[in-house]
């Protein structure tokens, strides 16, 4: 069953085309690693899939609902995905547990489980505002928020960036478990070893559009 379907996607930013004609499917239980040169549009693709950046053309469907479609479709698709942005930059005034609560309430789900909290070391971050965290701490907090649900599709933009070795291992374990439970994952990364550990199918982006 296809969880994510991307059809002829094109996105423009700042007056220039960043990506165009992207075609991609991710099935339930599948992990797809998006790779490519710096500036080729990996983050743009993931932001568009996650409903953050509106495309100029094409269509993104998550769990059968169009991310940029009708109100009902928008709500359903966002309900089905968890997103970690490249900068791990949700509103900085939120405390970590407020972000998890927001994601849990938005997805009609339970807050992070004890297992997830232990794996990512979330308890120590609970009462810390995001804008006082290091990049690695923000990334862990965002991962905790993304896994809340858990959603049918994880959209992770360089989720390994800033993580120490212990948390990186935990992340690999969590993503594999998510896939084993039937969840789909699309992630951008420059870490070939991590993609290999995840047994991810590689989606190679074209060189940057000039």
């Amino acid at each position, binding site marked *: 069953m296809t969880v994510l379907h991307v059809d002829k996607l094109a996105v423009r930013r*700042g*007056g*220039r085309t960043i990506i165009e004609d992207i075609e991609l499917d991710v099935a339930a239980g599948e992990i797809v690693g998006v790779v490519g040169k710096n500036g080729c549009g990996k983050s743009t693709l993931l*932001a568009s899939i*996650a*409903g*953050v950046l509106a495309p100029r053309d094409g269509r993104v469907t998550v769990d059968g609902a169009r991310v940029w479609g009708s*109100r009902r479709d*928008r*709500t*359903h698709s*966002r*309900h089905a*995905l968890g*997103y970690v*942005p490249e900068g791990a*930059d*949700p*509103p900085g*005034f*939120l*405390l970590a*547990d*407020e*972000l*998890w*609560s*927001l*994601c*849990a*309430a*938005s*997805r*009609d789900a*339970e*807050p*992070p*489980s*004890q297992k997830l909290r232990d794996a990512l070391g979330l308890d120590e971050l*609970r*009462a810390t505002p995001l804008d006082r965290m290091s990049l690695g701490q923000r990334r862990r907090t965002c991962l905790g928020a993304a896994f809340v649900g858990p959603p049918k599709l994880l*959209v992770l933009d360089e989720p390994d960036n800033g993580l120490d070795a212990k948390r990186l291992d935990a992340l690999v374990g969590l993503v594999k478990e998510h896939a084993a439970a039937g969840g789909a994952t699309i992630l951008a990364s420059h870490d070939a070893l991590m993609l290999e550990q995840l047994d991810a199918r590689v989606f190679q982006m074209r060189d940057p559009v000039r």
Partner: protein
Amino acid sequence: MADAMHRSSSSTTSFPATARGDVRWLDVWTRAVIVPAGRRASAIWVGTAIVAAVIFGPTGMRPSDLTGLALHHPGVGATLAVTWMLIYAPTARMLLRADGAAFLRSLPGPRVAPFLLGVAALFGLQAPWVALWVIGEGFVGIAVIILVTLAITLLARWRPPRARAKWPNWRHPGAALRAIQLRALRRRAGDALVRGIGLAILAGATAGLFVRNNELHDAAASVMGAAVIAIVLVPAEVGVLLVILGAHRETAWLAAIAVVQLVATAIAIGAAALIIEPDTSTVLWLAGTSVCVALGSALGCARMLLAAEELPSIASRTVVGSIVVAAYAIVCLGLFGIFGVAAFGATAILAIATIPQGSS
């Protein structure tokens, strides 16, 4: 339906309770978009309150006088509208682009409520402008507000195309520093520049209206006009200086002397001239006095920047120092009239001569 999804997380029990209460999408969106825009607008409100006190003071105009003048005098109307557009565009940009809430777009949330809140804030945060036109012109004023807001919306949504950067070819260190400062202003300080230009026009327009309204001429007009320009220009100059400080701290003093004060003053004089016309002699008096005050202020700011170069508190010192320099200029002009320019200039030169040892 959307609201039903934003139920309280406190109803769940697997996560230790921290008594945070409800965390609702719309609340977070409001804090991420409306509150920062409100904070930025509050500075505009303070600035316009000062200007309003000058223009609508006991011997001043009524709002209908100003709006009537703007409607029947193209120069005044254009100056007023452009000033407000430039001052308010950065706030409008925060509301329209909502960059602070980008992450929230990945979560299911309401669409209509943030749109309505955004529109309400777009008009509500223009309170001084709205008050001026509604009190001054009633329904015609509302039409003006809507038209100007549409223009502001277009301006705020416009993203200039990215210029293709050439390979830099800086032949000496001075050229490199100048180029770095200009690039910092162009690329990082779009809002500060737009706001600065708006405030400079506002300073000039306020001075022009003050002079015109009080029927001042020549030396008397130049003293009062220069004093008004000096104080209203402070936030414009500080915004730009802080960006230059961030780009290259060691040469910020050079920018203070060479560019910021004089350019801001030139813009202000241009705006004042549009309103004072056709009294050429008064405009020339005002230009001469304001340029002298600007040179003195430039020296004063440079002194303050050089003294604080090594300090971590340089940014706050820049703000306070600029206010002190402007206030001192006003005191000199108030006490000694046109001769206050000489007193202010002499003090500024003296201040430069007493730069602490070790400063570059």
